[in-house]
C-alpha cells in the first residue's frame, strides 16, 4: 500500500502544475480563517465573526460547508492525473512494467483517500483554532459535539474525487472530463425536472434525485446560514419559518459510499475491458 502511494506521489509531485494546485488548495483551506476578519460596513462595522459563525459546534457545519467548495482545485488535479496516464500512454508502460490493473486503480484511489483525509484534518485544525479564538462556548463537550460534519466532509470529498477518477478513465482527456462533470450536474437537474414534470410528483422526483451521485454529495452538508440565530430572527420578522433538517443522516453517507464503490469498481472494470 505504501508502495502504491509512493508511486502516485512521484507522479504527482514532479508535475509542476499539480504541485501548484495542491499547494494552493491547502493554502485556501487555511484561508477560511480569513473570513473572521471580514467586516460588514454597517454602522461601526459588524465583524462576521461576531455573528456567531465561529461558535462551537456550528463552526463544524459552517467550515466544512465552505471548505467543500475548494474541492474543485483538487478535482482538476485528479482528473488530469488520470487522463494524463492515457495521453502520455504511461498507463501502458506501468502495466508492462508489472503493475496490475487492480494496483493501478488502487494507487489512484488511495491517493484520493489521502487527499480527502488530509483535507478533513486540515479543516478540523483550522476550525478548532478559529473556534477556540472566537467561540462563545468553550466547554469540551460542546466543542466536540456535531463532529459528524467532519465525517460527512470526508465522505463527500471521497465520493466526489472517486467520481473524478472515473471520469478521467472514462473520458481519457482531462478537459473533456471536467466538461463532462459539469454536464452531469446539469443532467441530474434535468432528470429531476423531467421526472417531476411528467412522471411523478415533485416529492418523489426529489427523493429520486437524492440518490443521484452529485445530489447525494450535495445533501451531505446542507447550506448552514439558515441555522444562524441572526438569520432565524430575520426570518421570523418577515414571517417565514426557516427551520430545517440540517443534520447528517447515516443513509446519506451510505448513498455516497455506495457511489464511491460504484465509481472505483467501474474504473477498474473499464480498465480491465479496454485494450490499451
Amino acid at each position, binding site marked *: 500500500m505504501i508502495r502504491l502511494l509512493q*508511486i502516485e506521489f512521484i507522479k504527482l509531485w514532479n508535475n509542476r502544475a499539480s504541485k501548484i494546485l495542491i499547494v494552493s488548495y491547502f493554502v485556501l483551506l487555511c484561508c477560511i480563517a480569513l473570513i473572521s476578519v471580514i467586516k460588514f460596513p454597517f454602522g461601526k462595522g459588524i465583524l462576521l465573526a461576531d455573528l456567531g459563525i465561529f461558535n462551537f459546534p456550528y463552526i463544524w457545519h459552517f467550515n466544512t460547508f465552505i471548505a467543500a467548495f475548494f474541492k474543485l482545485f483538487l478535482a482538476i488535479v485528479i482528473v488530469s492525473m488520470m487522463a494524463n496516464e492515457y495521453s*502520455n500512454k504511461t498507463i501502458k*508502460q506501468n*502495466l*508492462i512494467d*508489472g503493475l496490475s*490493473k487492480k494496483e493501478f486503480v488502487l494507487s489512484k484511489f488511495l491517493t484520493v483517500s489521502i487527499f480527502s483525509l488530509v483535507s478533513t484534518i486540515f479543516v478540523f485544525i483550522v476550525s478548532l483554532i478559529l473556534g477556540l479564538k472566537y467561540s462563545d462556548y468553550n466547554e469540551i463537550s460542546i466543542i466536540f459535539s456535531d463532529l459528524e460534519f467532519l465525517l460527512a466532509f470526508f465522505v463527500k470529498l471521497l465520493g466526489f474525487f472517486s467520481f473524478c477518477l472515473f471520469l478521467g478513465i472514462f473520458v481519457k482527456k482531462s478537459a473533456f472530463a471536467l466538461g463532462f462533470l459539469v454536464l452531469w450536474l446539469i443532467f441530474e437537474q434535468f432528470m429531476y425536472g423531467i421526472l417531476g414534470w411528467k412522471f411523478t410528483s415533485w416529492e418523489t422526483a426529489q427523493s429520486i434525485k437524492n440518490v443521484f451521485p452529485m445530489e447525494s454529495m450535495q445533501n451531505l452538508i446542507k447550506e448552514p446560514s439558515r441555522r444562524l440565530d441572526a438569520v432565524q430572527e430575520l426570518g421570523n420578522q418577515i414571517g417565514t419559518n426557516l427551520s430545517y433538517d440540517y443534520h447528517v443522516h447515516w443513509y446519506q453517507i451510505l448513498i455516497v459510499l455506495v457511489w464511491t464503490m460504484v465509481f472505483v469498481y467501474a474504473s477498474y472494470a473499464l480498465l480491465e475491458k479496454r*485494450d490499451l
Partner: protein
Amino acid sequence: MENILKVNNLTKKYGSLTAVKDLSFTIEKGNVYGILGPNGSGKSTTLGIVLNVVNRTSGNFSWFNGNVSTHEALKRVGAIIERPNFYPYMTASQNLKLVCKIKNVSENKIEEKLELVGLLDRKDSKFRSYSLGMKQRLAIASALLNDPEILILDEPTNGLDPQGIHQIREIIKKIAAQGTTILLASHLLDEVEKVCSHVIILRKGEKLYAGSVDGMLASYGFFELKSKQPEKLINILEKHGDFSEIKFANGLITAILKAELNAEELNKYLFNKGVILSHLVKRKESLEEQFLALTKKQSN
C-alpha cells in the same frame, strides 16, 4: 530447458478483423528470438497480449511455467513496445525511480543502466527534451533496471536515424552477449538476422514458421560462378545432378544445390571438364531470401 513463455492457441479479434490467429510458440531460456512479419501481421498485438495490455479473445499463455501471475511475471521481464512512454515532465532519473518502485527493485542500478545506454550525463534533463533516439535508449535502460530474465523489444529501431539504429543494435548485442533471453519483433530482416538464433514468422496473424534460423529452409546453399565460357559451364552444371536450378543473369551464374557439395570439389570437377572459373562463391540464403521464399511458398 526452462520455458520462459508458452503461448497456446492465442487468438485476438478486433471486430471482424483477426489480428492473431491460433498462435502457439514457446520461448526458452538463453535464446535470442526474432518475431518476423510484415507490418500488420500481429507482432505487436501478440506482445501486447502477453504483456497484459491487450485482452485476448481466446487461447492462453503462461510465464515462467505458469507459476506466477502475469503482473508478477512482468516484474521479471523488461519490455519496450512501440514508442517509449514516460512522464514528459519528469527527468530521466525520476522516471527510472518510478519504474523501480513499480518493479519493486532497489534504485541503485539506475546510474549503471543509464551509463550502459550512454545517457548518464543527461540524467537530470526532462524526458520531453530528449530526441527520439535518446528516448528509445532510456526505454532500454528502464527495461533493464530489474536485470530481466527476458528482454522484449518491439521495433526498437523504428524511426531512428542510422546513428541511432547503430547505437541500439550495439546495446542489444551487448545484452545478448550477457546471456539474457531476448525477444525481438521487427520487420527489418537484417536486424533479426544479425542477432537472433531463433525466429517466429507471422503473416496475417498466422504462424508460418517457428524454429532455428538455420533450419528455416532445409537448403544446401548455392554457388555463384563466373567464367569466360558461360554456356559450356551451364551445360556441365546441368549434367552434374547435384543442382536443382541454374540461373544466369548479368554474367553471373547462380546454381542452387540439392545435395551437399563443397566448393573445392566443384572447382576441381569443373577444371577437369575444361572450364576455368573467374569467380566462385558458396553461400547460404540470407534470412531475407528465406523469408521471401517461405512467404511465397505459403501463399501459393
